[in-house]
């Protein structure tokens, strides 16, 4: 390989001596090929991501209810936003999304971190791979199918969770067994489900982070008499901080804009803790009078609140370095 590359670099000199025409041709071929290769990506990215984002922003400035044929589509400026800012249900929807996020996020960061540290210490490569594989199984199941499984798991009649709690362990009776999908428990229930789903996937991130820590750092600290607990907080935690911060930002964003979970487990009752801004937006756009203009405004307000916090997190984490 080394010999080969030496030979090639000698030839490279002759390339620069080629005629101008050749170089212009090269240049054109390069640009042409570059944009030709980028074309499919651009079509899908612009057509089904960028354009819809701007189009929905346009909708938010309209009085737009397509099922009411007699009602003309009219431009009403920021009227939808004025209404949205005064809408208690939207505010509540954002608070509900934030509540779920606050409950979900710590578990989604610290449990995988703990697991990664444990797996990283396993010296037997086969055993370590086995744990990785088992933990990654849920990551191979698409989210909505996970949510369905857990909806059944939480079921009061058929669900195995309450079967174990009531019939096997006897912690509860049929009368006072936890109603996992009730308004009181649905948010913790969703968080447990999300932890189960994301455990292995996030552990992989932390394992990748751990692999970058030089081993002698641990050995030196151990020699200095540090126990595992102290070692974690003095060395490992700080070395994993970059990975942790990336995951916090990523998961904050996804958790605030969750919708499938709520649609599958929550339904459209407005007093449910799962009726967040995302569900409110979908409900307004596709059910009842289908007020798509107002729904677009709801979506944008929720999105902007979310992006502001993501931006704030970026800024906070950047200033630490």
């Amino acid at each position, binding site marked *: 390989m080394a010999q080969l590359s030496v030979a090639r670099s000698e030839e490279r000199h002759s390339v620069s001596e080629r005629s101008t025409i050749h170089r212009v041709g090269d240049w054109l071929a390069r640009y042409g090929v570059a944009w030709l290769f980028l074309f499919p990506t651009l079509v899908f990215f612009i057509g089904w991501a960028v354009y819809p984002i701007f189009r929905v922003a346009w909708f938010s400035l309209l009085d737009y209810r397509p099922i009411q044929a007699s009602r003309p589509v009219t431009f009403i400026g920021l009227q939808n936003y004025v209404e949205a800012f005064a809408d208690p249900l939207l505010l509540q929807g954002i608070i509900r999304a934030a509540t779920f996020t606050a409950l979900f996020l710590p578990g989604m960061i610290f449990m995988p971190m703990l697991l990664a540290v444990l797996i990283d210490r396993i010296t037997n490569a086969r055993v370590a791979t086995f744990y990785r594989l088992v*933990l990654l199984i849920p990551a191979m199941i698409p989210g909505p199918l996970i949510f369905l499984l857990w909806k059944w798991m939480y079921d009061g009649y058929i669900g195995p969770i309450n079967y174990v709690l009531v019939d096997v362990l006897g912690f509860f009776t049929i009368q006072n067994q936890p109603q996992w999908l009730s308004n009181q428990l649905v948010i913790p229930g969703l968080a447990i489900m999300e932890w189960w789903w994301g455990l292995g996937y996030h552990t992989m991130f932390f394992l990748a982070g751990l692999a970058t820590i030089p081993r002698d750092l641990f050995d030196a600290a151990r020699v200095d008499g540090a126990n595992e607990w102290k070692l974690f907080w003095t060395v490992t935690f700080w070395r994993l901080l970059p990975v942790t911060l990336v995951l916090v930002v990523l998961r904050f964003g996804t958790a605030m804009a969750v919708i499938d979970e709520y649609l599958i487990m929550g339904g459209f009752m407005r007093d449910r803790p799962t009726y967040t801004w995302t569900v409110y937006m979908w409900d307004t756009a596709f059910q009842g009078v289908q007020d798509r203009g107002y729904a677009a405004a709801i979506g944008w307000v*929720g999105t902007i609140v979310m992006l502001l916090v993501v931006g704030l997190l970026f800024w906070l984490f950047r200033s630490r370095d």
Partner: protein
Amino acid sequence: MATHEASARLEGLSYPVPAISRRSKIKWGSVLRHVILAIFALIIIMPLVWVLLLSVKSLPDAYQNEIWPKTFDWSHYSYSLQKIPTLPQNYMNSIIVTLGTVVITTVCAVLAGYVMVFLQVPGVPIVFGLLVASMFFPTRVTAVIAIFETQKDLGLLNIPAGLIFPYVSLSLAISVFVMRGMFQTVPHEIYDAARIDGAGPVRMLVGILLPMVKNGLVVVIIINFVAAWGEYLLAKTLNTNQSAQTLPVVLSTATGGMGAWVWPRLAAVYIMAIAPGLIVFGFAQRWYIKGLQEGALKG
């Protein structure tokens, strides 16, 4: 142990490492470690074992709640495929949509990743920046209304394959990101050498570079498979006819476990829905984990 002592010596420490007490401590720690990991592994496995067993329970057993069935009944699989009218169609829809999405996105990501690493052309970094920025934007949720209108304008509502268009854009940014990361691990000498040998972009890509980034390809394929196979919001919004729906949407409307959808049959359809992903994972896990380690998780 030896390494500890060696490193202690390297660090210039004069006191010896207390080898014996340390050894016994590590043993207990390792027992505890395996116990914790085994508990987590069990927690991960149990729900799936439960739904698998539910799918082969006889009907009376299914309502007894005991985890292990008294009588096995394997007929739920064939029953649901034969007797639930749209189910084979829904299964087919999921396959078409997923195959289309995986193939198109992978091709897009390979081409774009190649351009971003090997053809430094003005404007390309801007495209990459926009793609990365879009990963932090909840496009699928915020733009669902406009995606619906766009699909309506194109006459793609209630056409299963129509879902492919928005689905490609779902994981396009992360796929390009992964492929770009993978191409960056290819030594530039190899690219230069092949170029001087007269390899055009196509031969370069297919013949030389792709075999070197196959772990990344596996990662991209799996990401897109999982995203398309289980997507719910867009499928529910865009395709409202039951015969045009994909598996997850049909399954989600069938809750309650009544009539044809009694619990074991629901569970059987569920197993059929998650099996392809798990089988693919079983075959591809080696490359997948390598791919994740090589490039996908960096960044």
